[in-house]
């Protein structure tokens, strides 16, 4: 694998990570948690589930991108995540066909 040295040494010396940005992201995550609890008490009918999942997904993206650093990682790390997401999505969609045939068809 080429380009290893960029990740082991340059990363360390070039820019030191900051505290502030992470604290900001944490504040956003707390705000989104408050939002999701508030929204849960409002009756949105069938959309309640989708709104809750949308907020959870936004929170997950923030944690993955900033806290887990994937935003600053290279294409190989990102592709692992993409593969993971794709496998899960395919399982989910194929299972949904079966489910909706059974219970709502």
């Amino acid at each position, binding site marked *: 694998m080429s380009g290893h040295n960029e990740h082991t040494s340059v990363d360390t010396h070039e820019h030191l990570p900051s505290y502030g940005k992470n604290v900001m992201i944490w504040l956003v995550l707390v705000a989104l*948690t408050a939002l999701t609890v508030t929204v849960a008490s409002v009756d949105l009918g069938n959309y309640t589930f989708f709104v809750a999942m949308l907020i*959870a997904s936004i929170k997950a993206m923030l944690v993955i991108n900033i806290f887990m650093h994937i935003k600053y990682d290279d294409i190989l790390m990102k592709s692992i995540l993409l593969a993971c997401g794709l496998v899960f999505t395919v399982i989910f969609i194929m299972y949904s066909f079966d489910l909706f045939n059974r219970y709502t068809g």
Partner: protein
Amino acid sequence: MSTTSVDAHGHSNNHAGHGYGDNNQLYVHFHRDDYGSKFGMWLFLFTEVLLFGGLFVLYYGYRIAYPHDYHNAAMELNIVMGAVNTLVLLTSSLTMVLSIVALRRKSIKTSLFYLIVTFGFGATFCVNKYFEWSAKIHHGIFPGSMELRETRPAGEVVFFGLYYLMTGLHTFHVIVGMVVMVFCFIFIRTGTINSDKYIVLENAGLYWHLVDLIWIFLFPLFYLLH
């Protein structure tokens, strides 16, 4: 492949093999691949996501089958308890990141402080979970209980079964993460993990964030079904 030499980083306490070169200068050679370590960690997290993913799919399937039972069962869970645990884990994720930031900025004491705080949040989460489960078990709601088998509809039995399985497996991950933190604490104290070689702490952080990520989905799926 990357072989980080001692000359490049200026410390020789991590050598795997050493000897003398032609002109009697001590040379130390060791192999270190931070990129590989991180990549391996991500592959492991992939398997973790699929482990929980299977359970989420199971949850989803039964939710479509028993929407009303799920709703009624979820009403019995304590939202405040769930929300507090969400905040505890989110904050612990922040302190874990701050511990890594501090270490990279060479403030060892700050790094250790944040690591202890993260450990404390993990423990807080487990204590909350203990009280939550105790209350449920006290009301006779646990897998295989008389209450569930004889008075509750099938969907509620499944809901509580998944609740115990998924939050239980998740809490087990929290405990494993806390054990990893103890090792990180010792390694930072001994200098094995330092501002140059922080990949072990970074990987521990990745694991801890995954635990947080899973809870981000568990919370709305189990507690916010009103």
